[in-house]
């Protein structure tokens, strides 16, 4: 392999988590309408942020998280800066607990994700309630975070495999 191709491959490996996050954003913007519109699309970027912040933070720098959040704001039509704030606060909190999660069983990490998702939901609800100056209903965000927590183990397992076999090799 030439040096240039190696460089490109390395760049691809480094950029993969960011690209998966952006794909999650596209998926959120897509009218999937699971279960006749009753099941909200899971917030996949939150799983991406949580996973790589714990297992390989150098693959997902704060700037990437900011970019993912901003893309989501642009596509959802909400206020700019909302999702970057949510994801970055999540990254900060998860990063502070990183040493606890490393090497733990997946069940424990799953519970940790449930806490992180709840925290993210609270930040979202607080900001949006302040912005609209009303106490917004919690049902929608609770359901969406519940969906995200439910799918977390599947995506976490897939990301672990991807990280071990593809991103870390070489």
């Amino acid at each position, binding site marked *: 392999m030439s040096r240039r191709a190696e460089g490109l491959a390395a760049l691809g490996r480094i950029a993969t988590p960011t690209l998966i996050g952006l794909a999650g954003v*596209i998926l*959120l*913007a*897509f*009218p*999937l*309408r699971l279960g*006749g*519109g*009753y099941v*909200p*699309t899971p917030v996949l970027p939150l799983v991406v942020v949580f996973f790589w912040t714990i297992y390989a*933070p150098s693959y997902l*720098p*704060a*700037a990437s*998280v*900011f970019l993912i*959040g901003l*893309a989501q704001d*642009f*596509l*959802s*039509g*909400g*206020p*700019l*800066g*909302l999702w*970057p*704030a949510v994801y*970055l*606060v999540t*990254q*900060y909190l998860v*990063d502070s607990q990183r040493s606890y999660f490393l090497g733990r069983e997946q069940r424990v990490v799953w519970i940790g994700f449930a806490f992180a998702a709840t925290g993210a939901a609270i930040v*979202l*609800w607080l*900001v*949006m309630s302040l*912005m*609209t100056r*009303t106490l*917004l*209903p919690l*049902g*929608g*965000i609770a*359901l*969406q975070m519940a969906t995200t927590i439910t799918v977390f183990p599947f995506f976490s397992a897939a990301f672990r495999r991807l990280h071990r076999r593809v991103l870390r090799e070489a």
Partner: protein
Amino acid sequence: MEILGQDRREGLGRKAESRAVLVTMIVASFILLLSSLYSAEASVFRKARESVIDAAEPVLSLIAGPIAYIQGVVGEVSDYFNVLEQNKALRAENAELRQWMEEALALRKTLAQYEALKAFHAPPGARPINASVIGDSNDAFTHAMLVNAGAPDGVMRGQAVIDDKGLVGRIVETGRAASRILLLTDAQSRVPVFIEDANVEGILVGRTNARPSISFTLSAGPANFQKGQRVLTSGAGGVVPRGIPVGEIVEERDGEAVVDLYADYARARLVRIIDHKFPTVEPIEAAPAEPTDRRQDGAAVLPSSVASLPALPPAPAPAPAEGAEDEPAQPEPSAVDEGD
């Protein structure tokens, strides 16, 4: 001091550096949030939003094909299992619709007779723009849809969007290839409506849940409405045309009427954007030669009553009309000049 120095050496390490970047980014996103809050209509943000939805349009359209195919197959399989029930329901609906058709035909005849009369002025027609839904906001607190029609197709901000059942929302952003619809359930959504049989007007306010509610102005007094009454757009404010079905009242909560929407957000795949031109009153040029005509012409009085509407060009102030009424025989040219 030594401990402080050690801390400092550690503080310059890579980890602390990335932590500092992270905190800076958090602060930056909150600043962005605040600035977008206070200048949501700023042209920079608008331009950026419109170019992003334009850029996303091909990607969303590309994945729409295979997913629509899968959903179609799944839908067909589930249809197969309840085909008997559906057939029964459709037969009942067909019988009901036949009755409606008879009534509609009779009404059409009557209407044609009325329209033949000289006194009738038909409202300006609306040109529909068909578009398919390529994006949902899928966000608990932001309710919007993206459609694949943009400014070149004639889509403009403020236009009403309907599906086959009723009002879906209004256009808030238009790019070149895609536009964004703010749904009636979004917390930012405000649409003037009226309740058909109760004869009350109000504003339909989104509550981020499935059912928006009508809030009434205080000056309107206690509103008398009942469960099951139809809610239609009122056309007040000159943005959304009058008479588009919105939904039905299901209950009263805190003095507001909770509305069950006709539009089905989970099924809306094709929507129709209504390009509706409101009858506007042309600003009448000051014609000093025949100022008395202005007073007699009914249109000259109209602008004062609709002057508050945002869409209208600057209308003549009521001053000239009043002045003309005071002195009908000798209207002063100066009064006309003041009006412009």
